[in-house]
């Protein structure tokens, strides 16, 4: 079944409120829902939520033979799935447009932005490399699944630790975590994704050219996302390096609008980056304490 389009009263009310800078969940136009991060008992398992949007990401690693063309590089693959649990409009076996966009963006942001040092995943050149597999599952959709999934994915990579290996001649010995401390992945940077929704300015004021600026909001909810005249997703790290900028159709934007988006995203990236680092540090402290008690 195709997703039911929002009703006329919903659309009119949302656009009317937005033109008064009011959002239905009480946020400011440029206010994120604070992400909540939870770690599982295993390393590399994380649940992330933006309000009622939930995603789970987990990483596992196995040893494989590298591609012939790139004997020194490890492999990374990303699977993402939007289950029918997330919302009634998703079905198993039939990929929705949203799922395609999310999958492609996750690939661009997490894999092709070179966040993970692939050469550090090499064990024995041309023979043995690590294959990292990230699985992102979306459990509930309340808008902006991309940002949520992306955050969960990058945190899972940061949280994951692979077993230590030792190479003697041609022989590879994998040490279990109880024998030798597992090793964190070597990450170059932490890309974070932010999605913005645009709306056409109210038609009543189109006569004056000054108010033709589109209305801009960050982290759209499901209804806001569906009614938006355009979406822009931008992935960048706290060091102001833009990895991906994605705008699929929608209203045309001027360069000044895009610069505004980038400015806001830079600020948010710093905030979220701090939050992520703190969550990881807190989790690590907790794990240390449990080890000492034994």
């Amino acid at each position, binding site marked *: 079944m195709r997703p039911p*389009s929002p*009703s*006329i*009263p919903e659309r009119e009310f*949302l656009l*009317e409120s937005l033109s008064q800078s009011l959002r*239905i969940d009480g946020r400011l136009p440029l206010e994120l829902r604070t992400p909540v991060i*939870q770690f599982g008992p295993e390393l590399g398992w994380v649940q992330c939520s933006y309000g009622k949007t939930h995603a789970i990401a987990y990483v596992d690693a196995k040893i494989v033979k590298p591609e012939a063309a790139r004997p020194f590089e490890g492999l990374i693959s990303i699977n993402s799935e939007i289950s029918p649990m997330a919302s009634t409009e998703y079905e198993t076996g039939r990929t929705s447009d949203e799922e395609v966009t999310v999958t492609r963006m996750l690939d661009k942001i997490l894999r092709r932005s070179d966040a993970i040092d692939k050469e550090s995943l090499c064990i024995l050149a041309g023979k043995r490399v690590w294959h990292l597999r990230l699985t992102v599952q979306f459990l*509930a959709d309340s808008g902006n699944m991309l940002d949520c999934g992306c955050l969960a994915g990058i945190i899972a990579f940061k949280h994951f630790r692979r077993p230590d290996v030792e190479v003697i001649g041609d022989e590879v010995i994998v040490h279990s975590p109880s024998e030798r401390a597992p090793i964190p992945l070597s990450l170059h940077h932490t890309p974070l994704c932010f999605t913005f929704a645009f709306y056409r300015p109210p038609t009543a004021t189109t006569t004056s050219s000054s108010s033709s600026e589109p209305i801009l909001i960050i982290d759209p909810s499901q209804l806001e996302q569906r009614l938006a005249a355009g979406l822009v997703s931008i992935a960048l790290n706290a060091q102001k390096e833009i990895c991906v900028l994605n705008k699929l159709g929608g209203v045309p934007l001027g360069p000044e609008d895009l610069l505004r988006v980038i400015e806001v995203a830079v600020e948010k990236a710093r905030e979220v980056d701090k939050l992520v680092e703190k969550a990881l540090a807190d989790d690590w402290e907790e794990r240390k304490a449990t080890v000492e008690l034994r």
Partner: protein
Amino acid sequence: MIVFPGQSAAQNHPNLKLGPGLVHAPSENNSAITKKAGVLHHSQNNARWWIDTHSRRYVSSAQESVIGIVNGKTADGYRVDIGAAHNATLDALAFEGATKRNKPNLKIGSLVYARVSLAHKDMDPELECFDAQSHKSEGFGELKGGFMLRCSLQMCRLLLDPSHFLLPRLGQKFPLEVAVGVNGRVWIDAKDSRKTIAVARCIEACDPDQYGITSGRRSRLPLTVDGVGNFLAEMDVA
């Protein structure tokens, strides 16, 4: 009492009435079998039995008031999305004062407040916007303006409970119009966007289903009677 699907429940009573989650089972000593997991309730005299469950998806059953979105027109009526597995049909003549010449004209995307007149497991549900006996609208019909909020099914049932604090408490503060469908949709109109948003947020904050996936760690607690005043003051509408 907590029950699971397949248990035999409800006592034999000459005037037995079964509500949601129970099916009549002649083989089981003429009583009932549960078909949902949840809390089993009954009335004082053991005549009415029903099961209360947590759920976000609506399963239609007859005589329930629902809010639907018109998503198609047919030769003699409309197709309406009521959040159930199938679209419902709404006959164009099932409105107060509707005749073959004078039918209401609903646009695609309009909201209707209607009652489920037919719910059968092998047929699409049917809706009507009038009382079958009196042919009066009784508050049913198109909902114009305002805003529609989606919440858990349990929250909708709570809002319909006259002893629940929220709507009377909000009504003391400012006038508002509300239509509650038991399909997890609530239509609100408080004439002013700010107030309508405030009502929507209060209902959301009050919802016992806070969409937490893991138990034990709730980001916030459901709103209580004493919290409403402060919450409204925070939103600057009280």
